[in-house]
């Protein structure tokens, strides 16, 4: 389409307009650290843990770390889409539980693992859709609605399961959890695929721009004809979809569907998004940032475990890191 001659003057003027600061100036600029908090944090943790406990850097441990991070990465992506619209999805971990229970029950009823997985994802997507619908149609704050669905689907999960875990003995899920392709296990590939698709959706589609516009200034976006309500509903539905994928990975990992909410998944998904430099006020987001944030949180837990630090200290460490990140974020450009 464009000839080089077309682009040359533009590229030249753009280069002249945005002069590059020197490396030293960059390193002294707090907003640099804010934008790259998750990368800096991850590199820092890898160095510290690598020195303190060389096993941390072994191929086997790094593979295990990535495997353990896959679920959180997928959930952080869902949470990112919601937070980009200036919302928050507190029902995310509960949706994972609901998806897992539905997967288990449908499979136990003899419908086959494929249908069970599809129904689980449909159910969690429906939860997300419902969140978005109530928030936009009812004009109720995101926080309140998703807190409500958190409680509602916790109850629904208990009712459906009778409070009992369901064993899921499926060769498909077993292979999903333990098989690998190339250097990574299948769950890692699922997470990588999710990152790529989400990145393209956010940066290379109209939906992505409209999502950020809705999160930035919903009223202005609406005045330009963007259907902000639909965008919001779509964001929550994506969040639900991610919860469904995470539910499949979770059931594959532990071999059963537990009627229990892993609250640290919810907190860590928000933490990963914050670490990833995504504004909680909406309007600016990336996918790579939260994904690296999720890796960083997983590395933290992994490293502390290798150093024989009691599991009781892990939430404390995660909390400290998140608050620190939030403080650094204040210097974001």
């Amino acid at each position, binding site marked *: 389409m464009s000839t080089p001659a077309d*682009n040359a003057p533009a590229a030249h003027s753009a280069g002249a307009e945005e002069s590059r600061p020197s490396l030293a100036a960059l390193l002294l600029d707090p907003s640099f650290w804010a934008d790259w908090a998750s990368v800096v944090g991850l590199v820092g943790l890898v160095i510290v843990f690598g020195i303190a406990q060389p096993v941390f850097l072994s191929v086997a441990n790094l593979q295990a770390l990535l495997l353990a991070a896959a679920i959180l990465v997928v959930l952080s992506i869902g949470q990112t889409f919601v937070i980009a619209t200036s919302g928050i999805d507190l029902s995310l971990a509960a949706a994972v539980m609901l998806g897992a229970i539905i997967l288990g029950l449908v499979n136990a009823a003899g419908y086959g693992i494929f249908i069970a997985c599809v129904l689980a994802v449909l159910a969690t997507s429906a939860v997300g859709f419902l969140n978005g619908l109530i928030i936009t149609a009812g004009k109720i704050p995101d926080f309140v609605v998703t807190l409500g669905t958190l409680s509602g689907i916790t109850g629904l999960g208990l009712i459906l399961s009778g409070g009992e875990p369901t064993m899921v003995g499926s060769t498909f899920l077993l292979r999903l959890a333990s098989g690998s392709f190339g250097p990574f296990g299948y769950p890692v590939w699922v997470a990588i695929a999710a990152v790529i698709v989400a990145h393209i959706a956010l940066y290379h589609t109209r939906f992505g721009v409209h999502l950020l516009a809705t999160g930035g200034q919903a009223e202005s976006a609406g005045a*330009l004809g*963007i259907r902000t309500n639909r965008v919001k509903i779509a964001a929550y539905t994506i969040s639900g979809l991610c919860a469904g994928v995470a539910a499949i990975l979770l059931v594959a990992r532990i071999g059963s569907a537990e009627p229990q909410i892993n609250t640290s998944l919810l907190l860590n998904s928000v933490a990963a998004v914050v670490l990833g430099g995504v504004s909680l006020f909406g*309007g600016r987001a990336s996918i790579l940032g939260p994904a690296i944030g999720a890796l960083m949180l997983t590395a933290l837990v992994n490293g502390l475990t290798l150093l024989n630090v009691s599991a009781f200290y892990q939430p404390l460490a995660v909390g400290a890191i998140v608050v620190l990140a939030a403080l650094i974020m204040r210097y974001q450009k």
Partner: protein
Amino acid sequence: MSAPHHIPAAEAIIACEGLSKHFGGIRAFTDVAFQARRGEVTAVIGDNGAGKSTLVRSLVGVHQPDAGDLFFDGQARPFANPDEARKAGIETVHQNLALIDELTVAQNLFLNREIVRRIGPFAFLDRKAMKREARSMLSRLSINVPSINQRVRRLSGGQRQAISICRAVGSGAKLVVMDEPTAALGVQETANVEALIRRLREQSVSVILVSHNFDQVRRLSDQIWVMRAGKMAATVRASETSGNELVALVTGAA
């Protein structure tokens, strides 16, 4: 109920009759009849809170009027949302709803009108094309911004206003609606915007201009409509009025 100056439907690019809009108990405006002639600059003046912005927003689909009829380009056309109005050929520079701070200049210029490239069932943004277009849109109107890749948050009020005007006039609309387009601008920028409005008029683009500046309104417009406390109080030809008469009409002293 009839408009003060009834003009034949074919001459009106946009017209409304009996239009009302209330917000809960607050009446923004009631029973308003208004027309803008094709190819003319039509001004709307009135004191703060008279209902000008709400009227404009009700014309272009941002608000849904509670009652009344709306005609655009000879057809009965209530716009269910701003998207329909934009597709019909109306671009608006809103008073307070101009740009998205967190998006770049180029993204703002093409917001909800993005250029896409289709690959199978998917459509991907053609960012290169949009940046190229954005540069030429800005340079055609000699608008200076540091970079089109910059977030608009860091631009000055005047630059932001210039960009939202650029977005409205750069797309070949039939009707451009501007709600106080020079309110935030300096002398030079105001002169630029006024030149731009004249150029639109030369290109037979219809313009609706909301302004508090009576001199500006008399310089630029063909017809002036006066709102007072939620009513359409009067309408006069710009060539047949004086600044004193406009003041009297706005304050209700006439």
